[in-house]
């Protein structure tokens, strides 16, 4: 396995054997360990000491289903703490088959305003060449990606940033290509696009030709695990073909969160949105059917995915408007802004993808701007104009691009739904207490994927728990956070959890696959320990970066303002929040 280090100070690259001490690290475990080991916790996130680290998971690049995930890590400009943001793309598989365990981008060029691309090929070992990419900056990504395919051919995979990353926004993602070569798959959260931009790096282009593939230590065990995983994904009602995810996409959650009174609406002022059915996954499906004259099922975001939950949304004339309207984006740009027009939501989504923005941070920031009276709630056209301002870097656009917390301060808003500087996702903590504990305590800032207790609290996956009860929720969040840290390292998409938390053989399949690749003999206990170790490293980095346990708190308005329809506040005691990591 290789370590590829790109130093942008002088545009040099070093390819070396991966250090033995990192042998079993992949995905989030790899990126977070490297950031913890090599990035000074007190450095400026956009300065020369920060490092941007890319790593595929343990099974990435193998025939394991739904495993083409990439972890991107650095110190976050948004939270000031450690960040891992995860995406599905052929780019992940290509990095893995080139046997690159970690790709590290470090340093910073002295010259301002010039951008570069790195083109990585394989010839006995990975090889890096640089090209001037300045001509591709200041443009929208759908214009730029085809030019890079034209330059390097169809077989490549592309990682890039939009203008959001070039402007250094706290709201800026790192984007990867999807299977239709669109710039749509985002490691969106935490401003990692700005870290890449701060290094003068516009592209990381991979060409997998002649790559040796992933070495699998015990092929028989791996295949056994892979079969168990496939069986679980193909039989579980949520993940199976033409099941909920494949038919309606992740936005199928809009209606259920609304029905449960936990769909944050108009900047987290209600748990119910009267326009929910108009923007839900079912509405996307029906609108496409009407406009295309046929049913359209979803597609895979990355090679080898058998869940296939990514949608495309079509205009009245049948042409493609955007891909993919995820639940989080649909909610943040829709319900959270009081917008019930699906065409407006689609346009906002398309603009986030075009400018390189995180849809969650964008929608929540606009919600705060609406609260401040900048534009009215529900005004989709005005919201579209604001996103153009962000993407073009106007003075107001720069304030909004800095993220929800900064925008809240600038506009004097007290209802600012963030933890550790990161905007909250699409589940209202006053109506679903366990996910609130995850938001409050995660090393990532408010992040639903860090410990998705929604599975038992709302969806009835892994049993059914009362979302309004506080009972046992700290332990539930802790267990989910540790398991997730492993899943984020194993290469699989987090959505395998729906199947494997209900189907025990699927869970064992994941462990077998990993043992097969690495030649380890891990048990279910071992993988929880592995996940917990990742969390401990991240937590230690945050503490050294000046983020104490007192940062594991909800914004004050959630403790004081009862949220309709349940009229509850977030009432998890501070001692319970502290126990999540205190008892890890």
């Amino acid at each position: 396995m290789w370590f590829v280090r790109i130093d942008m100070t002088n545009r040099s690259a070093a390819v070396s054997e991966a250090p033995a001490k990192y042998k079993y690290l992949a995905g989030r475990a790899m990126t977070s360990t490297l950031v913890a080991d090599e990035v000074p916790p007190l450095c400026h996130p956009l300065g020369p000491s920060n490092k941007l680290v890319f790593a595929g998971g343990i099974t990435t690049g193998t025939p394991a289903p739904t495993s083409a995930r990439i972890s991107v890590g650095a110190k976050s400009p948004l939270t000031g703490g450690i960040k891992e943001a995860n995406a599905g793309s052929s780019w992940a598989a290509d990095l893995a088959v080139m046997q690159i365990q970690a790709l590290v981008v470090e340093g910073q060029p002295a010259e301002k305003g010039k951008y570069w691309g790195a083109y990585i090929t394989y010839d006995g070992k990975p090889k890096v060449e640089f090209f001037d990419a300045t001509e591709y900056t200041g443009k929208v990504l759908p214009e730029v990606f085809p030019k890079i395919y034209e330059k390097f051919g169809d077989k490549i995979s592309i990682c890039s940033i939009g203008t959001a990353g070039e402007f250094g926004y706290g709201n800026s993602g790192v984007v990867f290509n999807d299977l239709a070569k669109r710039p749509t798959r985002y490691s969106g959260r935490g401003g990692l696009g700005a870290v890449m931009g701060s290094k003068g790096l516009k592209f990381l282009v991979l060409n997998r030709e002649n790559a040796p593939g992933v070495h699998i230590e015990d092929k028989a065990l791996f295949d056994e695990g892979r079969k168990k995983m496939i069986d679980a994904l193909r039989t579980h009602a949520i993940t199976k073909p033409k099941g909920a995810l494949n038919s309606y996409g992740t936005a199928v959650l809009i209606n259920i969160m609304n029905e449960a009174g936990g769909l944050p609406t108009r900047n987290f002022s209600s748990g119910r949105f009267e326009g929910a059915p108009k923007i839900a996954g079912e509405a996307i499906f029906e609108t496409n059917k009407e406009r295309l004259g046929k049913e359209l099922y979803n597609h895979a975001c990355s090679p080898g995915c058998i869940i296939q939950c990514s949608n495309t949304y079509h205009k009245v004339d049948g042409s493609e408007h955007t891909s993919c309207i995820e639940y989080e984006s649909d909610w943040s740009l829709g319900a959270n802004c009081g917008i019930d027009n699906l065409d407006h939501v689609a346009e906002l989504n398309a603009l986030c993808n075009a400018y390189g923005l995180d849809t969650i941070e964008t929608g929540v920031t606009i919600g705060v701007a609406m609260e401040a009276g900048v534009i009215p709630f529900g005004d989709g056209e005005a919201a579209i104009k604001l996103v153009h301002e962000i993407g073009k870097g106007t003075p107001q656009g720069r304030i909004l691009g800095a993220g929800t917390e900064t925008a809240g301060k600038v506009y004097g808003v007290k209802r600012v739904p963030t933890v550790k500087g990161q905007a909250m996702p699409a589940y209202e903590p006053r109506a679903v207490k366990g996910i609130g504990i995850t938001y409050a305590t995660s090393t990532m800032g408010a992040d639903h994927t860090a410990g998705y207790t929604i599975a038992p609290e709302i969806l009835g996956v892994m049993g059914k728990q009362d979302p309004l009860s506080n009972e046992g929720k700290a332990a539930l969040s802790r267990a989910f956070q540790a398991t997730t840290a492993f899943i984020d390292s194993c290469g699989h998409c987090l959505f395998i959890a729906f199947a494997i938390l209900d189907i025990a053989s699927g869970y064992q399949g994941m462990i077998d696959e990993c043992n097969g690749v690495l030649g380890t003999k891990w048990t279910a206990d071992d993988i929880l320990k592995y996940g917990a170790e990742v969390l401990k490293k991240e937590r230690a980095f945050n503490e050294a970066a000046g983020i104490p346990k007192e940062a594991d708190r909800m914004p004050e308005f959630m403790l004081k303002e009862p949220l309709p329809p349940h009229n509850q506040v977030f009432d998890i005691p501070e001692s319970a929040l502290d126990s999540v990591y205190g008892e890890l």
Partner: protein
Amino acid sequence: MKIDVRLYATLARFAPSGSSGRTFEVELSEGSTLGDLIHFLQLPIDEVKLHFVNAVHQELDFPLQNGDEVGIFPPIGGG
């Protein structure tokens, strides 16, 4: 008694409008349970996974009251 009902996702085909999330009224005899409602609507029980009464998930033996709002879902997930 009258119950306001919404059916979602693949269960929408059993709603009078065929539309997901559109409210329709059902008249049931006093003392009916959530399970009785599902039986009345002739929903295939293996497709029914999650059922909310007035924004709270309830089991099938839950007794309904006049004016209750019920939302019924098949197994769904996302994130």
